[in-house]
């Protein structure tokens, strides 16, 4: 363990080496700079820091500041019966195939924010979970865990915001565990407003049971380096997964999204739709993986990835993988990389919209289509606002041949 970062975080434990270019799923992630950083483990003062949070978007709010639970800032007083949000000692993560960062999370996140919705309970207003980064005396890595468990037939919408003060330049690693019981429906909306100088890792694991559904909408847009993974097991017959999201990467951002779904039972359905925009010298990565197990007949899986390359110096990497071990299935994947459509640009300009605005409008529309599944108007508006704020300014399309 020769990494300064690992030494600073592992407290003498052996967590293995940081993943690198030879590890599938990490081959694009630039971790060299991270490996050289000496960081505090968490922010001990996080529990008492004065914080000015952005306005709440859900009916209820649970707040983590630098990885530490802040009941004083949360709004959970009127949670309906059968819905609980608690900060409790975390059980050891039980996932195979983990990497050094996830081992560090297990080691350092002593507590987890646990959300439980009992069987049959419907949470009618969205619950906002906000992981907020605040500047501390010395740079730190925040390790957070969130667990969400929906009981049989329960329904809930959860907004997960990763955000922070403008100049917070720290490292956040969030492990998210989602468990959706039979017939339950969970909507997860992930709004990434991470500070521009920060590094963000999100590792989300979900298990969806028989006839249950998980719907995810995500906008990746914030950190200098971000890698957000979502792994879903469709574990019960008729389980459904829908993922739609967009990533905007500008300047020198590295924005990476890993999506994987494993169909483990019959008649399961997954639809993964991802769009990325890369401008300036940024890089956007999508790793998309569909696996259909033996016996998961009747499965239907689709992965689509569309990308806009807005600068000759930007980079898009897209890597779809299909592994199919059952016969009676439907599976498809497709990926495209292109530029803004000249015909659409001309149409807008011919109506009076200036070139830069036409470009911004088309880029906005390209991403905004992915957010239509967000059923809450105020939350959808917040995604829109973030999206508009992050549109590349004056991005030139790559030079024409």
């Amino acid at each position, binding site marked *: 363990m020769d990494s300064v970062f690992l030494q600073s975080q592992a407290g003498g434990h052996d967590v293995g080496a940081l993943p690198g270019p030879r590890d599938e799923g990490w081959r694009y992630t630039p971790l060299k700079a991270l490996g050289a950083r000496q960081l505090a483990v968490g922010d001990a003062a996080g529990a008492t820091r004065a914080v000015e949070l952005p306005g709440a978007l859900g009916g209820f709010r649970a707040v983590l500041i630098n990885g530490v639970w802040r009941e004083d800032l949360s709004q959970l007083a009127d949670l309906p019966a059968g819905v609980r949000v608690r900060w409790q000692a975390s059980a050891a993560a039980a996932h195979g195939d983990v990497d050094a960062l996830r081992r560090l999370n297990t080691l350092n996140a002593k507590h987890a924010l646990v959300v439980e919705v009992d069987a049959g309970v419907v949470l009618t207003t969205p619950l906002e979970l906000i992981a907020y980064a605040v500047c501390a005396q010395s740079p730190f890595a925040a390790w957070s865990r969130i667990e969400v468990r929906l009981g049989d037939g329960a329904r809930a919408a959860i907004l997960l915001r990763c955000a922070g003060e403008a100049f917070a330049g720290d490292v956040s690693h969030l492990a998210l565990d989602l468990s959706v019981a039979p017939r339950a429906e969970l909507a997860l909306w992930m709004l990434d407003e991470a500070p521009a100088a920060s590094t963000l890792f999100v590792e989300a694991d979900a298990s969806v049971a028989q006839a249950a559904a998980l719907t995810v909408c995500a906008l990746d847009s914030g950190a200098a380096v971000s890698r957000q993974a979502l792994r879903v097991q469709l574990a019960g017959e008729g389980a459904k997964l829908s993922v739609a999201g967009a990533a905007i990467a500008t300047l020198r951002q590295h924005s990476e999204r890993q999506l994987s779904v494993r169909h483990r039972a019959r008649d399961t359905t997954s639809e993964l739709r991802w769009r990325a925009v890369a401008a300036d010298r940024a890089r956007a990565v999508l790793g998309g993986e569909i696996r259909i197990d033996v016996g998961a007949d009747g499965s239907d899986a689709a992965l689509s990835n569309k990308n806009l390359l807005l600068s000759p110096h930007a980079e898009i990497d897209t890597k779809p993988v299909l592994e199919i071990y059952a016969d009676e299935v439907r599976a498809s994947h497709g990926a495209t990389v292109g530029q803004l*459509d*000249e*015909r*659409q640009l*001309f*149409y*807008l*300009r*011919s*109506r*009076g*919209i*200036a*070139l830069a*605005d*036409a470009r911004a*409008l*088309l880029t*906005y*529309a*390209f991403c*905004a*289509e992915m957010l239509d599944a967000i059923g809450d108007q105020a939350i959808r508006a917040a995604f829109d606002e973030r999206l508009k704020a992050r549109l590349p300014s004056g991005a030139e399309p790559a030079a024409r041949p």
Partner: protein
Amino acid sequence: MLKITNLHVSVAGKAILKGIDLTVAAGEVHAIMGPNGSGKSTLGHVLAGREGYEITDGSVEYRGEDLLALEPEVRAARGVFLAFQYPVEIPGVNNTYFLRAALNAQRRARGEPELDSVEFLKRVREKLRVLHVADDLLHRGVNEGFSGGEKKRNEIFQMAVLEPTLAILDETDSGLDIDALRLVADGVNKLRSAERAFVVITHYQRLLDYIVPDRVHVLAEGRIVKSGDRSLALKLEEEGYAWAGERRLPEPA
């Protein structure tokens, strides 16, 4: 209002327009007819400012300005409008949002105050009613999933909201059934005024039964080979373009 002089245009080195002369005064409706491939759509695109066309000779003056020197959005702000033959679909851009952004961009460019959403919607509703356009068109993406007829009607609806000074209609009648054709013609006729001019590009004279032109020009192989009044269109209908073609001017030496 519009004065096209000796306009020569090439696409990828191939000459398409070979010396167009055309003068359109305010208040007039000019029809440009011609067979496929004669350069009709090229003329429309060049006037609106589409890239990919090389002006090899000639000039276009619009209200005293060199039109060809202006960016497409500036032309729009000056009052030039092209109703596209094949309007492009723009999924994810709401029709209302788009139209308001366009109108306000034009107004800003002209130094006029922008319309707020209440004023804008009032204007839009008026036009919808007048043009018999369905309300739900407003809530959809621009041309997204529209039928051919809906796209054409949307073009005319946009024209009605933007109130251009010079409107160029590029085969707006193609693919329309007779009812849709009447609606489109109705939309144009309601906008006709002494300050506004129209260039109606069409393959068939049918549209001209409803939009009665002041002048008719026949375009063939990149040139206007014949001009006349409305009766020219009727004659073309009877005799076909070959008739006009035979009267083509001789090649200049």
